[in-house]
Structures are given as structure tokens and as C-alpha cells.
């Protein structure tokens, strides 16, 4: 349990998707104009990461990895399908996003209409694929750890986008040099936030 909590907190603060790895920057920059929409997108990302990372974990350990197919019989023991990783992960992600979209549309039309176009956009959010690839690279021991990592990364991304959206709402009233307005200042603020987040680096949990 302690291990899980440690992975969760690590993935929120120390290995923050946005500030430590710059994943999901495109939607982070494009959707962070107002706090409301970024909260919606943030929740959707938490949700999708929390589902796809465990699914891809199972896929990696029981289908794709070297020797992962041995449960089918001894003849499959040395089959290595790892070159299919990218295509399988992205297919799972695209399918999950589609599924999540349909489920939300069916059961909660209000949430669906408030998320609107952001749901399909998540399929190409690099934070999602990045989550699965980091999960693969770090060799988490079991499903619970992978889930904790997925959820934690999602929460970290959520914090980052809500934070920058709040700052952008305020900075609209400041005298930013004209060529720097909009995108430029957002980059620089994100850089400064990243430097702040670096203070978490090296903390052992």
C-alpha cells in the first residue's frame, strides 16, 4: 500500500507529465485559455489515463512482451511481439477514447456536451501514449502499481493545466510586450512553473 501511495505521489509531483517530460503540451497550450474548459479536459485525461495504462499493462505482460504468450502453451514461450507495441498501444487508446465517448454520451449527456470536442482530442494527447510507454519502460510489478501510476500522471496533468489556465486568465490584464502576448508568455510561464516543480526532484518517498 505504501508502495502504491509512493508511486502515485511521485507521478503527480516528481515525474509530472507536463513539467518533467513535456507530454501533452499541445492540448495543454491550446485548451488552457479558461479554467472551466481546462478542468473538463483535465478530468477526461485522468479518466482515460486511469483506464488505458492498466489495459496496456495487461497487454504488455500477457501478449506483447518477450515470453508473455507462454500462458498459451510452451510453444509460444519465446515469441516476442514487442515490435508491435506502438501500434497496439495506440489502437487501445483510440478504441478506449471512442468507448469512453460513447459511454459518457449515453449516461451523462451534460458532461458529454461540456467536454465536447476535447474527448476525441485526447486520443492524440501525447500524455496518454507517453503514460503507457513510461509504464512499459519502468517495468511496474503489478496491475495496481500501473493503475496508481496512470491515475497519478493524470492528476499531475490536471494540476498543471488548471494552474496555467488560472495564470493565463489573470495575465490578460498585465502589460505583456505585444510580440510576447498569448503563446510566447505562456511558454515562458510554463518554463518558470517547470523550474518551480524541479524543486521536487530528488525527493525520495
Amino acid at each position, binding site marked *: 500500500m505504501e508502495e502504491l501511495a509512493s508511486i502515485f505521489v511521485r507521478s503527480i509531483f516528481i515525474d509530472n507529465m507536463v513539467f*518533467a517530460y*513535456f507530454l501533452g503540451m*499541445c492540448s495543454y*497550450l491550446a485548451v488552457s485559455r479558461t479554467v472551466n474548459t481546462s478542468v473538463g479536459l483535465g478530468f477526461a485525461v485522468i479518466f482515460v489515463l486511469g483506464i488505458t495504462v492498466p489495459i496496456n499493462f495487461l497487454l504488455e505482460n500477457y501478449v506483447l512482451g518477450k515470453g508473455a504468450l507462454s500462458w498459451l502453451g510452451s510453444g509460444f514461450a519465446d515469441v516476442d511481439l514487442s515490435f508491435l507495441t506502438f501500434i497496439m498501444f495506440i489502437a487501445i487508446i483510440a478504441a478506449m477514447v471512442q468507448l469512453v465517448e460513447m459511454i459518457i454520451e449515453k449516461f451523462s449527456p451534460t458532461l458529454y456536451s461540456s467536454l465536447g470536442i476535447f474527448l*476525441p482530442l485526447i486520443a*492524440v494527447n501525447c500524455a496518454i*501514449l507517453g503514460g503507457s510507454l513510461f509504464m512499459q519502460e519502468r517495468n511496474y510489478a503489478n496491475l495496481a502499481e500501473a493503475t496508481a501510476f496512470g491515475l497519478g500522471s493524470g492528476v499531475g496533468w490536471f494540476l498543471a493545466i488548471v494552474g496555467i489556465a488560472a495564470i493565463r486568465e489573470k495575465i490578460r490584464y498585465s502589460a505583456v510586450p505585444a510580440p510576447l502576448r498569448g*503563446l510566447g508568455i505562456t511558454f515562458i510561464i510554463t*518554463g518558470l512553473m*517547470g523550474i518551480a516543480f524541479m524543486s521536487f526532484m530528488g525527493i525520495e518517498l
Partner: protein
Amino acid sequence: MSENMDNNKESLFSLKNRKLLSNPLSKENPISVQVLGICSVLAITVQLRASIVMAISVIAVMGFANVIISLLRKTIPPRIRIIVQLTVIASLVILVDQILKAYVYDVSRQLSVFVGLIITNCIIMGRLEAFALYNKPWPSFLDGIGNAAGYGWVLLTVGFFRELLGSGTLMGYQVIPDALYEVGYENNGFMILPPMALITVGVIIWVQRHRDRELIDVS
């Protein structure tokens, strides 16, 4: 008929096609104007070598992905186009990944997950959606190469400054003379850290928009 043929040939590098190639380098730069594909710019630009490899990989993937989608554009059902596009891109990225692993293994280690993340590089998806789905293969190819090159030069600029100021080297060779270090010059260790990539891109945007006032964000 022959005149028609001639026209077709002319148009390979007509003004319009040249624009497809050159606009993304400046006015419609994918990174500084369209805000696409930021993730990889920031993460792999610590060294110039990795940046060059990444830029070439993206140019290759994007040119071919645009051509393939453009050839298939009339047969892809609109409802499942995202999965089709991702499959095409993912297959090309697998090829690139295998080639990198075979020929430049150390760079491939350094790029780690970011080769895989070319798949979700939004420039590629974005251009497939916005351009290749509605245009013929040749213009799509030019558009792909142009956008990838626009992405590439920002990548190289950021990589150049980060490696020069951060480690005093370029492509792994020392360029800052020892004499300078003896006088008391120090490498700026800050440039190696990820947040400085963001600030470098911010400064590039600043310079670009200062020179080209049309691009200034008025909202």
C-alpha cells in the same frame, strides 16, 4: 493534351506548391504559430545530435504519412479516419524506430519514448486532418515535408543554443575554447534542464513575432 501534360509538369513546383513548402517555415510554422507538436521539441533538444535525428525522423514519417493518407483519401470512411491515420503513422514510426535501433543505437536510447511519441505528434495528425485528406499526393507530400522542416528548424535552433550554452559543445565536440574557461567562463547548467527549452522556444516566438507583426496575438 500535350499542353495539359506540360501544365501538369509545370505545376510540380508552381508558386502554389512552393508556398506549401515555404509557408510552414515562417508564417505558418507548426510550432511557433500553429502550436502543434511541442512535446518533442522540449524533451529531446538537450543535444544537437538528437535534435537532428529527431528532425529527420519526423520529416520522413510526415512526408510518407501525408502521401499514403492522400492516396487513400477517397476510400477512408470518415467515421473511423482517426484510427486509420494513427495506424498509418504508427507503422511508419515502427519502421523509423527499427532503423534507428539498427544504425544509431545510442541516439535511439537517448530519444527513448520520444520516438514512439512521434505517433501522437500533433503536427502529423493535424496536417493529415487539415491537408492530406483533401488534397492530391504531390501537394500533400510538399505540405508534409514543409511542415516537418518548419518543425525541424525550431528543433535545431533550440538544440543548438541549449547544447552550446549548456555544455559548451556542438554535436559532442567542444567549441568554447579552453582559454575562455580559464578566464572564468562557466557552462550554464540551467540550459540542460527541461524548463529552459520552454523559455528558449518562448524567446524564439518573441523574436519571430517582433519581426513579423501580423502574427501578434490580439486576443
